[in-house]
């Protein structure tokens, strides 16, 4: 009970010492999460239902009057605000993590308070652990808010993978977002401990983060299958008139017995006089969009998040011997 009280007291003082960064980054992270939710609400408000989007794809834009307007409005938001907010989901976690992490050690050294703290604390490791855990807890909370809101927006703007691949958002949504905030935090702590000045450490942290983002994007690119249809043997084209499915903008259908039909073939099979062509097609065939499966995206995200979390933990561990050996000024 006493140790819990001490831990809470330590957390209170840590947050109070860093209240500007804590307040600013909480507002920033929750602001981005709020924006993502707001854009998702805007997408829903267009009235572009999943059925409408499917119809649009099936008939290459010749959807019913009731769908055309909503789908166009929906598409405008997807290509506009939704894209910008998803872009922020790549930058915000690193920025929030670095800004929270740098002052933990960097500002203590810069403002010479480390001299007082390290003279009082026999063990600098215990001192650093006491400083880090409340901020890590906060970062996890903010990261979770960003991860959930980005996943919701990604699902909305890809229409659950129907309109475009969720793989494109793999680094911008879900567990990777949470992992990135922790990587940013670890980077910030180490940069602050090494440099010992807040602003230079922020710059160093930002430069390293840019490099990390470039590596992650390259990793994502190399993890993407060469053709969206070439993912294992998910699509059997043995009984189809096409050997290789076009990864570009096109729509295919699978019949009940597993044959793949091109759109012209599917349209040719629609009985004459059918008014709701889209409805007929979707009721008789399964729509096969040219997208990477969501399962692959989830697997990629899980692996990426795990790797980044391990790297963050190792980086944070490196901060301890640095602090242990460092001069306090």
């Amino acid at each position, binding site marked *: 009970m006493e140790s819990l009280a*001490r831990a809470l*007291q*330590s957390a209170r*003082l840590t947050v*109070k*010492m860093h*209240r500007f960064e804590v307040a600013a980054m909480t507002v920033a992270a929750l602001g981005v999460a709020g924006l993502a939710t707001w854009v998702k609400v805007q997408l829903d408000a267009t009235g572009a239902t999943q059925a409408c989007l499917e119809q649009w794809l099936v008939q290459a834009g010749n959807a019913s009057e009731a769908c055309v307007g909503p789908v166009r409005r929906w598409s405008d938001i997807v290509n506009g605000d939704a894209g910008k907010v998803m872009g922020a989901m790549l930058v915000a976690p690193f920025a929030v993590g670095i800004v929270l992490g740098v002052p933990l050690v960097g500002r203590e050294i810069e*403002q*010479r*308070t*480390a*001299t*007082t*703290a*390290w*003279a*009082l*604390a*026999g*063990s600098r490791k215990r*001192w650093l652990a*006491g400083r880090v855990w409340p901020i890590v807890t906060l970062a996890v909370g903010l990261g979770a808010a960003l991860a959930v809101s980005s996943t919701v927006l990604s699902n909305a703007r890809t229409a659950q993978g129907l309109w475009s691949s969720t793989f494109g958002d793999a680094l911008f949504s879900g567990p990777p977002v949470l992992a990135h905030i922790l990587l940013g935090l670890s980077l910030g702590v180490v940069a602050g401990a090494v440099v010992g000045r807040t602003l230079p450490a922020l710059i160093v942290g930002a430069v390293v983060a840019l490099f990390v983002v470039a590596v992650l994007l390259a990793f994502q690119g190399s993890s993407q299958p060469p053709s969206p249809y070439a993912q294992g043997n998910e699509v059997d084209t043995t009984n189809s008139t096409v050997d290789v499915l076009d990864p570009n903008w096109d729509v295919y259908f699978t019949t009940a017995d597993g044959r793949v039909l091109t759109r012209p073939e599917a349209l040719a099979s629609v009985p004459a006089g059918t008014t709701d062509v889209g409805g007929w097609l979707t009721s008789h065939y399964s729509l096969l969009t040219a997208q990477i499966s969501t399962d692959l995206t989830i697997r990629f995200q899980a692996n990426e998040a795990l790797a980044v979390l391990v790297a963050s933990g190792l980086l944070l561990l490196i901060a301890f011997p640095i602090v242990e050996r460092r*001069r*306090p000024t």
Partner: protein
Amino acid sequence: MIGMGEGAQTDPAVTSEGLWKRYGRRRPWALRDVTLSAPTGSITAIVGPNGAGKSTLIRTWMGFERPTSGRVLVDSIDPWHDRPAALARVGYVPQAASLYRDLTVRDHLELASLLRHRFDQAVARQHLIALGISPRQRAGELSGGQQAQLGLALALGTRAPVLLLDEPLASLDPLARRDFLRILVEAVRSEGTTALLSSHIVTDVQEACDRVIVLSSGRILLNDAVVSAQASHAVGLGPMMCRAVVGSFSGPGGEELSLMHAPPAGDDARAATLEEIVLGYLVAGQQVESVEAEWAA
């Protein structure tokens, strides 16, 4: 002297043995062969000009600096090899008031309790109450004197057997200095603590200390009890040509004075003040340095 201790024990609380320190191969030596010890229960002033190595010496005892060669001990513990154990025996007041500007006075005491298991908040609180420092005030709102007192309260609250104070008086007005030293001396005498206090102004510390170490360019020029130093040095008017002359310097009226390592005797010599002793040794140190520089060139 304020509350000069009676019967101070002579076991060294902190020692330095053949200590050399420099901050890089191309940099000059910050400390050169510093060997000294401070007896338990004593208050030792480390005096010297800026850049003399005072802070480096104190920071080496704190385990903040690694000796280039030689070693230091705090209560027989080498802080570089067992820093937690050494720091558990030390209360430290750093050069600038290194406080958290946004934390209140009470927060500082709570923080100290979290960082140091045996921190005695009551001792620190009592000290601050006596000075009328409110627990709700933020450290950034305190005057320079109050910040220094808070720093001292944090050091005293550790109830450590050794107090190391790195120029705590540098930014204080004369009244605040006097208050600071009075409280320090009272605390040290009542607890039997050993204190080492660095300053570049002799008059600041002569009232409080019973030992003096004069440091210049990293070298110890004098290490003696204040009483003994005063008894064994005299000042003569004008240039003196005898082997006992330590150094010559200008007096307050521009007259040339010579410090001699000899008891005051005769009409042309009088007892030296501590300030005159320090000045004489610093001048002598500068002369040695300039000769060394010539040889090096």
